[in-house]
């Protein structure tokens, strides 16, 4: 299991399709405990927390910024500085990951706004779904893909995601990279779960199509 969250069992429960609740190792504090401990002044708790989430948050920005590392570095650092600054405002009521990616998404939107990019408002979800996927999106199960992937395939996969409309791309990253559930994504984005679901399916289709082309 490559560098996402140390100690976690996996991102998705394939049976339900729902991402698992954060399951730290035995005896290890969960994210909320670590954040609260840091708010009390324990710097080591932050280091643990950062180690768990630094890679997915970085890739979240990197994928949205189409691989521009310099900008991704800046937004990533800004995000965690905001986490540091907001440590005393964090409460256990919100799951830490949801809270974290809410901050990340806001930082991304601010960046797009400042740079004049269209950001998440580029495409209408319904138009994208109907034009690209049609009825296949709802009913046909996706056949399994080959697990093998080489560098070329990785590049195409990344390119395929970066070419995906921002909302679909965002849903994919929040679900696959961050491990948020549909309900959490819906709450974070302010959209309905069905809308989030549609976006996810669309993203899966595009990526799958990119892989199938290589096979």
């Amino acid at each position, binding site marked *: 299991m*490559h560098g996402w969250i140390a100690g976690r069992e996996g991102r998705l429960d394939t049976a339900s399709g729902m991402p698992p609740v954060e399951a730290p190792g035995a005896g290890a504090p969960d994210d909320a405990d670590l954040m609260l401990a840091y708010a009390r002044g324990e710097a080591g708790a932050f280091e643990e927390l*950062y180690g768990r989430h*630094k890679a997915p948050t970085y890739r979240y920005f990197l994928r949205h910024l189409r691989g521009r590392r310099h900008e991704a570095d800046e937004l990533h*650092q800004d995000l965690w500085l905001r986490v*540091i600054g907001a440590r005393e405002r964090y409460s256990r009521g919100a799951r830490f990951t949801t809270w974290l990616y809410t901050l990340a998404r806001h930082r991304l939107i601010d960046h797009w706004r400042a740079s004049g990019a269209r950001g998440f408002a580029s495409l209408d979800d319904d138009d994208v779904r109907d034009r690209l996927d049609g009825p296949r999106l709802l009913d046909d199960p996706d056949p399994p893909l080959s697990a093998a992937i080489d560098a070329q395939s990785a590049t195409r996969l990344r390119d395929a995601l970066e070419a995906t409309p921002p909302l679909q791309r965002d849903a994919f990253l929040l679900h696959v990279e961050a491990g948020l559930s549909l309900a959490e994504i819906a709450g974070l984005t302010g959209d309905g779960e069905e809308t989030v679901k549609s976006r996810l399916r669309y993203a899966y289709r595009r*990526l799958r199509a990119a892989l199938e082309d290589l096979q």
Partner: protein
Amino acid sequence: MNTRPPDPSPPDGLRRAWHDASAEVPPERVDQAILAAARAAVKPPRAAPRSMRWWSPGWQRGLAAAAVAGIAFVLAQVLPHGTESSRAPPERAPTPAVSGADRPRAPSMPTHERTPQAETTIEAPAPRPAGASARETEKRAAQPDVAPAPGAPQESDVAAESPEPAQGTDLRDRADVVAAGAPAELPAPGARSAAVGKLSAESAVTADAESRAIADEVARVVELHANGDLASAAEALRQLRRRTAHADGLLPDSLREWARTVR
């Protein structure tokens, strides 16, 4: 038939493929910057070092040293100075009158400090009034054993402000020269300490008595010579020379030719 679409989940291969394709991590410098900021944010505020607090012992020592230095400086400026030259000139009686009580004075010797026993048999020269004649001075010098009356008006001290002898043969002037020329026991000009001032006062008394004695010696030489007792006059001159190196200069001009013959 379940018309509800299943919850979307990536195909098995897709998830794994995606993880393989997307493995980037933030650069190390970014990690360090964030962690440093996190540590700094919860670091307790550093208390001011003790040495920086003004009430700390270090500061107290410095303040004490500064206070002592300041007080020492003020005392040095305020305390009376002990040099002859720095003292205010003694009071001067505005009188040219010469009486039997005239005596040579040390420049710094105030009038009231004179002691009657310092009076000698030979009348000391009077202060240097303007226009005093040599004849009058010698007349005074010829008067023996004239002790000053208590409370008699004393000639005010006239500071020998100039080491140069007055014109003519005024023994008073010679005495002033002697007084001015007896610097050995007087404090050096410019002395500032109170201790030096005290020494100056003591030495001033000594110098005054010495000058009076010298003046008496000079007068004796003059008297003996005038009386024709050249041998005694010569002996007195030799005693005077032992007392002061300026003995011959203290004699009247009329006796200097004779003084040169005395060995």
